[in-house]
Each structure stands twice: as structure tokens, then as C-alpha cells.
């Protein structure tokens, strides 16, 4: 029987395997940010250990960095606790000889944006980071997953992790996506279908003609949210789109290594007779733009639907969960999604802050104005290089003319560790990945959407079906 893409990646990285399947897995790329690493570096120091392979590590501050002007460097971080965390990363990288893109380096950005952008994420790699959205990098036919801080220390010290193999799941999206329907809508629809724990214990391979038709940016958006379906790792097979994206990036192989690497990468597909423990298929045509209504990404409906009614649900734990979510979100069952008005809009995060995302949002914003009831509409590019590219295309002018704020790169209001946040009771259309209680600020209410849907919500002040905007006059 053939092997899945996940089987192949696993097999290639086994250093040792015990009889019970406990495996020592080799890690090729270790991405590090300021929040989950200080205790790991401290652990190394206390034990008198050194990093095993510093050239495998790439560090960047992203969670705590301000998105407002920061030309003075770290001293522009107003919150002293945030500042200390960024300074601690800088010091640790210096002490241990690790490559870091510091806050004002033009290559700085969200760790899951810069890895691929630099070609530091390559097909066939194992990629880890102390961050659950590391699944993003699986878009390149890599085995990429988030780890805790103890494991960050373990990888630094040994270049390996002790793991057990997950089961194989394939999620197929077949057919052609409708106009205005994006990778974000695809992955939200998948999570709506299999649930937030549907992928627990599995590595998910996303496949099918609709996935193959996505750009690398789109595939990253889909793999990014594999973790919101419970799967530590999401991945997509290598094809020409993958290879074209990587060519000539700073960390990508060059010269005589390039054709050798490409030949090896072309093997990174599941064999036709590979076995998956579970297969889920969604027809692309049935996917509409999605909007989450609750406090878990699985609480999602199409933009033309209504907020569901817990009374219709028989499972008591689920029903109670829906009631709590509706109370937190201050929503009534049966409300039309398009009647939900917004206070803030956030376009950014490791899910949707790449150039294609900004183009999609700008296409909607062009010639329109942010609605009066929207107090703040933020656009936060995923990296300094995404920002440069967007500015070269004039996207920043479109956003600013429409009343959006154009900011410096970072994680920003996805998790509000910096100053960008929701106040209690505020409602936000967000292109990020989590609508958990308090995620964007204590008491804040998050609705997850695509960049185009977020821009459309900003200019209308409430959710609208982006598919209907085509015919609207500006």
C-alpha cells in the first residue's frame, strides 16, 4: 500500500523509534518568537546547554510589537512588560548566536508570514514553533506543527522532538469556488463541517481540485486554521504552484541544488493508493462566504444565513455551549447575519495578512468609505516586505482614502497582546483565526471572516454578502 504525504514526511525524519511507536523526530526548521521562548532559553542556561544547530533557528518578535510608528526601536513599546519580552528575545538571540529579524528590520513580521516569504520554509521540512498556527507552513508540503515551551527548549537542545504519529485525514474540496469565495471561507466551512475537535489526533491533508487551484497564500490560510479543527498539522501536496513560489527566495536552494531539491519535492504527494483513516469531501460550489456567530470557530454560518437556535439542538452540552456563546456575543437566535452591526474591523493576522489578502480587501475598499458606526478599521500587513509590496501597489492609499488605518506589521489585534484591542462589548469583523471569549480584548466580540468580507463589513457598518457588492455603485 502507498504512503500519504504525512507518512512520507514522518518516515524521512525518524531518528529513532521505540517498540511502542514513540519516535525521536528530527526538526529542520525552528521558528522562535518572543512570547513562548524566554522560559526555554532560561532552561538551557540553567542546565548549561547550548542550541544543537543555530542555523536551523529563525527568530522574530511579532506578538507584542506596536503597529503604530516605532522608528525609535524597542523604546517605542510603551508597555514595560511587553518591552521586556521583546528585549529578552533580542538578548537571548545574541547570547546563543541565533539569527533574528529584530523589530525594525524590514524583514520583520508575523513568524508564519516571514518563514515562507524568506524561503525558510521548504517542502519536505519539519517545521516547529512555539505557536499553534505553525500548521500554516504545511501549505508547502512540510510537516509543521505548534509546540509548547518545554518542547521549544527540547528542540533547541537536541534538534529533535519525542512524538507519536498521528492518524491520517484527508479533506477534499472538489469543484470550483464561486466568485467572492476565498480560502478563508473554505477553511471555515471545513471547520463548520467537522467541528473544532474533528481533527484532533489527525494530521490533515487538504486536497481536491479547489485546493489545488488555490495560490500559496490561500493554501497557507487553509493550513493555518487546521489547528482550529483540532489538527496540529495541516498540509497540501507539492505542485508547480509551490515550486514557483519558492524559487529565488533568500533561503531557497540555488545553483545546482535547485533542480535536485525540486526533483525531491515532486515526490511530496500522497500515493494514489495511500490509506487515510478518515476522508471528508466538500463540494466547492456549496461554499458561501462564511461568518462566525459564536465563541468557537465551528460556530459558523453562511453570510446569507441566520444565527442558529440552541433549542433546535438535542445534545445538552452542545446546547448549553451555544447558549453561553450567544449570551457572550449578545446575539439572539434567528438574527440575520447581515443585520449584525460592527464597532471595529481588523484585517491582518497569520491567517490573512499576505499580499493577496490585502489586495482582496483593497479591491472592496476602493472608492468607498468606512461606515460612521465603525470606530476603527485596522489594516496590519503580515510583514515589512508585505507592507513594502502593498505600498508599491498603492494599496495603502486606497485603504487610507477609505478611512482605514495602515499600520506596521505584527500579530496586533488577533490576540491583542499589544495596544490594538477590543474594549468590553465591542463587536469586530476580523480576518484572524480565533473568536474565543476575550481573544481580541476582555469582553470583546469577534466574528471571523475573509479579508473581502471584512472590508465590505467596514464600509457598510454591518455584514454584507461580498458577492452582491459587484453590482453596487461606489
Amino acid at each position: 500500500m502507498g504512503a500519504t504525504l504525512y507518512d512520507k514526511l514522518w518516515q524521512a525524519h525518524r531518528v529513532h523509534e521505540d517498540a511502542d511507536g514513540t519516535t525521536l523526530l528530527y526538526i529542520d526548521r525552528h521558528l522562535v518568537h518572543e512570547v513562548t521562548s524566554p522560559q526555554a532559553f532560561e532552561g538551557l542556561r540553567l542546565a548549561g546547554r547550548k542550541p544543537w544547530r543555530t542555523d536551523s533557528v529563525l527568530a522574530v518578535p511579532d506578538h507584542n510589537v506596536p503597529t503604530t510608528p516605532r522608528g525609535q526601536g524597542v523604546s517605542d513599546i510603551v508597555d514595560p512588560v511587553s518591552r521586556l519580552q521583546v528585549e529578552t528575545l533580542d538578548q537571548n538571540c545574541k547570547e546563543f548566536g541565533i539569527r533574528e529579524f529584530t523589530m525594525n528590520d524590514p524583514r520583520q513580521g508575523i513568524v508564519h508570514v516571514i518563514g515562507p516569504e524568506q524561503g525558510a520554509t521548504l517542502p519536505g521540512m519539519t517545521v516547529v514553533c512555539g505557536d499553534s498556527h505553525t500548521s500554516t507552513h504545511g501549505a508547502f508540503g512540510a510537516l509543521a506543527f505548534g509546540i509548547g515551551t518545554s518542547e521549544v527548549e527540547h528542540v533547541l537542545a537536541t534538534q529533535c522532538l519525542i512524538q507519536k504519529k498521528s492518524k491520517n485525514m484527508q479533506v477534499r474540496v472538489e469543484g470550483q469556488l464561486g466568485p467572492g469565495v476565498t480560502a478563508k471561507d473554505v477553511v471555515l466551512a471545513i471547520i463548520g463541517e467537522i467541528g473544532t475537535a474533528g481533527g484532533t489526533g489527525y494530521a490533515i491533508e487538504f486536497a481536491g481540485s479547489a485546493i489545488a487551484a488555490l495560490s500559496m497564500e490561500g493554501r497557507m490560510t487553509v493550513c493555518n486554521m487546521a489547528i482550529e479543527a483540532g489538527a496540529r498539522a495541516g498540509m497540501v501536496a507539492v505542485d508547480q504552484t509551490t515550486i514557483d513560489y519558492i524559487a529565488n527566495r533568500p533561503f531557497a536552494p540555488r545553483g545546482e541544488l535547485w533542480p535536485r531539491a525540486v526533483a525531491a519535492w515532486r515526490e511530496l504527494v500522497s500515493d494514489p493508493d495511500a490509506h487515510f483513516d478518515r476522508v471528508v469531501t466538500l463540494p466547492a460550489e456549496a461554499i458561501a462566504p462564511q461568518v462566525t456567530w459564536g465563541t468557537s470557530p465551528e460556530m459558523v454560518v453562511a453570510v446569507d444565513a441566520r444565527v442558529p437556535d440552541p433549542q433546535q439542538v438535542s445534545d445538552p452540552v452542545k446546547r448549553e455551549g451555544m447558549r453561553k456563546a450567544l449570551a457572550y456575543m449578545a446575539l439572539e437566535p434567528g438574527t440575520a447575519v447581515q443585520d449584525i452591526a460592527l464597532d471595529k474591523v481588523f484585517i491582518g493576522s497569520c491567517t490573512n495578512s499576505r499580499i493577496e489578502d490585502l489586495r482582496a480587501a483593497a479591491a472592496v475598499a476602493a472608492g468607498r468609505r468606512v461606515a460612521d458606526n465603525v470606530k476603527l478599521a485596522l489594516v496590519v500587513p503580515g510583514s515589512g516586505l508585505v507592507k513594502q509590496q502593498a505600498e508599491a501597489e498603492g494599496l495603502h492609499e486606497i485603504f487610507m482614502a477609505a478611512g482605514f488605518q495602515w499600520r506596521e506589521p505584527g500579530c496586533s489585534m488577533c490576540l491583542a497582546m499589544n495596544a490594538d484591542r477590543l474594549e468590553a462589548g465591542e463587536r469586530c469583523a476580523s480576518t484572524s483565526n480565533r473568536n474565543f471569549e476575550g481573544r481580541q480584548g476582555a469582553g470583546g466580540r469577534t466574528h471571523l471572516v475573509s479579508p473581502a468580507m471584512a472590508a465590505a463589513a467596514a464600509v457598510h457598518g454591518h455584514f454584507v454578502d461580498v458577492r452582491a457588492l459587484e453590482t453596487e455603485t461606489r
Partner: protein
Amino acid sequence: MEKFTRLDALVAPLDRANVDTDAIIPKQYLKSVKRSGFGPNLFDDWRYLTPGEPGQDHSQRPLNPDFVLNQPRYAGAQILLARENFGCGSSREHAVWALEDAGFRVVIAPSFADIFFNNCFKNGVLPVVVDGAVLDRLFAAVAAQEGYRLQVDLQAQQLRTPDGESIAFEVDEFRKYCLLNGLDDIGLTLQRAEAIGEYERRRRQEAPWLFA
């Protein structure tokens, strides 16, 4: 890491599914560069009536009387009963550090999110998976009987109820060994340094672009 062998402790119930790590420890406390001190902020948004910030004296903040863990009968609990998909979301190990710092050594649930589950074992916290029907009974027993305790025996892989019932649970062999002995797994892995070096030499030949 602190050893885990057996525990006889008070049980507290948290009866909701999909409790995420943002709820277990909110983001503002992740700015700490330390590994300890997260206990007062466990379930911070649910536990207190006012928003909190790091560095604040949390003992002065008003407690939410409706939050179950604030009930005096659960003070000192070391075992948490939870529902499906406990610990979903972010990889923050701070969630386990907060539970541990607040005194919890065991979490019992029908399912856990993978990264959280893994993080528990690195910190001497035992996640125990039991099936839904058993869990429903435990929730009912905790509600019915103030001071309800459970015995957790890792060696025997058993929970024991006050009326003498034994509930078996599964635990991965290697993780059990590390927990029982309080072992640092980095030290264990470094015993295989030679194999890691050999693997690297082979891979450098096969795929040199991975070592740029």
C-alpha cells in the same frame, strides 16, 4: 519536573466543552518571562468581575460568585473535571503552568486538544481521558456530595471513587515512565546524541538544502 505517582484530592467541576487556552490563561499574562506565578490568573476572565493586568494585586479584585471554582467547597481542589476538547486553541504552555500553579495536578476529561495534552506531561500534570458516561457520573457525584475526592494511581492507571469503584485509564508508556520518575526528557534524548548526529550526516548528503 515534579514526580507524579498517586494523588488523593478534592475534585472541582468545570462543566463546559471546548475550554480554550485563552480562557485558561488570558493573553496579557503571557508577557511574563517566567515559568511561575500564573495561578492567580487561571480562568481570569471567568474568575474575577474586573479586568486584570499583569503586576496587579489580584487578591484585591472582586471574585465572580457565579464561577464554580470560586465556591468555597472547591477551595484546595487538585483534580479538575472537564468536558470535551479541553485546552483547545493556542499552544501556550502557560495554560498548564497556571493550572499547576493553582494546585491542579490532574485534569479529567473525555478528550483534550493535542498540544495542551502534550504540555501537561512536561509539567507533572496528568491528563486523564474517561468516556462520557463515566464522566457524567463523576459530575453528578461531585455536585451531590460536598468534599468529593478521588484517588488517582498512575502506576496502576486507575481512578478510585470514595465508594470503592475503580476506573481504569490509558496512558502512554513513555509518558508514564517520565511522570513517575519526574524525568527531564531532554536528558533522555541527549543519550541518543550519536544517532542524531548520524541522521544529520546522512541527511546532509541526501538533502543539503535543508542545512543552509
